[in-house]
């Protein structure tokens, strides 16, 4: 471990770590492991999705055709852009550009909010068209039963994704506060880095959700 005496006295160094390097490595490994659990969490949903899509391909295609594709596409662009601003925020934090970090974090949060706004509009549309599963569900009779499974999966998958976005936004707000307060410095930028990992992960989940939910009906109709 590095014997740098300055690191030992860094205010961000917790008592049980030998140095900042060890602390940073532990935090990064912890976040990667957490993301592994997230992969398995969404993995369960993707398994359910795969099983039912292979059983009921026509119903899934028909149901997917009802998605608001322009909204999904816009949201995909919004999220990819937010990943870019996030990456730039991390970079700025590593080189110690405090104001730049705050700008990019703000941009990331704004894009995240835009995503949630568009998502809320979509939910409203689906609610109005009686595509929410349950007693009020309405769909072409030939596909009505199995389309319910599609929409159930749609709401749970996108709902959990949106919940992760909300948590991400909260995380970003904390990071913004920490940068503003001066906790985050060039020597101690790992909180932003690991928050960035989380943000990118949530984006990647959407990159899978978008084609699986919005685009499978395209070629069939």
């Amino acid at each position, binding site marked *: 471990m590095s014997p740098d005496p300055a690191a030992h006295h860094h205010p961000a160094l917790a008592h049980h770590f030998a140095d900042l390097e060890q602390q940073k490595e532990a935090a990064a490994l912890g976040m990667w492991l957490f993301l592994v659990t997230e992969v398995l969490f969404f993995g369960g949903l993707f398994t359910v999705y795969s099983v039912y899509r292979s059983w009921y391909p026509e119903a899934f295609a028909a149901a997917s055709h009802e998605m608001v594709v322009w909204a999904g596409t816009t949201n995909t662009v919004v999220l990819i852009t937010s990943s870019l601003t996030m990456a730039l925020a991390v970079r700025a934090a590593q080189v110690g550009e405090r104001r730049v970090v705050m700008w990019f974090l703000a941009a990331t949060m704004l894009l995240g909010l835009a995503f949630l706004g568009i998502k809320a509009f979509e939910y409203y549309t689906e609610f109005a068209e009686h595509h929410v599963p349950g007693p009020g569900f309405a769909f072409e009779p030939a596909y009505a*039963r199995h389309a319910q499974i599609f929409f159930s999966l749609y709401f749970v998958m996108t709902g959990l994704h949106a919940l992760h976005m909300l948590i991400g936004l909260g995380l970003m707000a904390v990071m913004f506060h920490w940068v503003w307060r001066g906790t985050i410095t060039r020597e101690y930028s790992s909180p932003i880095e690991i928050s960035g990992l989380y943000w990118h992960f949530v984006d990647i989940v959407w990159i899978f959700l978008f084609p699986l939910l919005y685009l499978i009906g395209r070629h069939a109709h």
Partner: protein
Amino acid sequence: MASSLLLPPRHYLNDGYGIKSWLLTRDHKRIALLYLAAVTFFFFVGGAMAVVIRLELATPVGDLVSDETYNKLFTMHGVMMVFFFLIPAIPSVLGNFLVPIMIGAKDLAFPKLNLASWYIYIVGGLFTLYALVTGGVDTGWTFYTPFSTVSSTTNVIPTALGIFITGFSSILTGLNFIVTIHRMRAPGMTWFRMPLFLWSTYATSLINVLGTPVIAITVLLVAAERVFHFGFFDPKVGGDPVLFQHLFWFYSHPAVYIMVLPAMGVISELVAAFCRKQVYGYSFVAFASIAIAVLGFLVWGHHMFVAGESVYAAMVFSILSFLVAVPSAVKVFNWTATMYKGAISWQTPMLYAIGFIGLFTIGGLTGLFLAAIGVDVHVTDTYFIVAHFHYIMVGGTIMGYLGGLHYWWPKISGRLYNEWLAKIAAAIIFVGFNLTFFPQFIVGYLGMPRRYHAYPPEFQLLNVLSSAGASILGVGYLIPMVYLMWSLRYGRVAGSNPFGASGLEWTTTSPPPTENFSEIPTVTEDAYTYPVRVEGHVA
């Protein structure tokens, strides 16, 4: 001699006395004690239900409680024992206390997260207790759909939420252990110098991290189906209830290893310490833990041999299940071989270790009956299964837990318990356990289905034996409660190494200081090196 020993002036137990110093602590040792209190509570709640279940089954007709109540009792017994006792017991109590000390660290990598895990566990437990006191739940701990989603009228949602929330406690504890073992080892503590308890804790943590999210999403889908009438498993919309079983067992079979692997780790420590020699075939025992964790993820389908899965899927799951038997057998053989030419002490922890090896052998061998599909068809969903998994869970996990608790109790509390009472309790538990569960193998092969409130009269004799055994077992569990509590105040001072055992935890004071060691140790030897070169009292 012992009477001249004094507790160290400064240790983690006298580092603050207020309630806040406990509820806001970040010290892994205090958090371990918080878990100890909580899991003990849930153990006795779950145990009380078992007592009523066994009383009901003493007669063939349903006379003590109604069928509805009976169903709630076995459901809550399973939920409490599995999710709130067996899964957290060894990792969260002994693991929390020992992982940092055994690798020579001051604490776990994420102490705040560790405390948060305890609160998450408590919140999950409160949800489940809420479900219990407001009427209970009757789905069985397995929550099979469509019964749990469309048929049951009981408190499925709060219970499912309780399990969902508690799952995060397991995930975060597992994550904390993995990062700690990777990043926090003391200088010289290489992977192959680690005590075997850490290998098994590491393997357990891997399962927790990889498996628990799947049960989390599964119970969430059940809740969504129940509350919002979403369709995932309901045949009415084309859903498949067997898909639920696949998702459920993808976690819940590995969960069996979450429960028993830490106990295996404890047994490795006990056998080494009380034979005063290295564990025979250290690396085989270490890798057997990892092999069990990995293979454990590939065998879930053996819970569905009669549930309508294809013949070929059944065969694949069957052969994989047999493969898990091999590393388990390797462990048993290695523990036995460790005793060869040992200096074997018959102190209480060793009695538990011996009990574990015997009972785990029976539990493991009866597992072969279940992996053999032709026999499984007959015995699955009968008392044979009940007996089998209680041999693993109670005969294995609880024996390991109690053995470990007795072994490290002087380290945790700084004091010695009454050895004679402890030996008597261990013997009572062993006899009571076998009397309770061995007859269930027989009554199971006769065909008595599990989860039956009433049963044909010809099964009564075996059930009476089982109920009688349960009452002995219950007394056996109460005795350690008494003498361990008593020892906290009146026990003789233990000294830093009362068993003359090897391991970093025995090089620090009993109880250890808050930062575990006066200075971070440097490790120069393999685990279980004897003679121990550290000064200290030898009992």
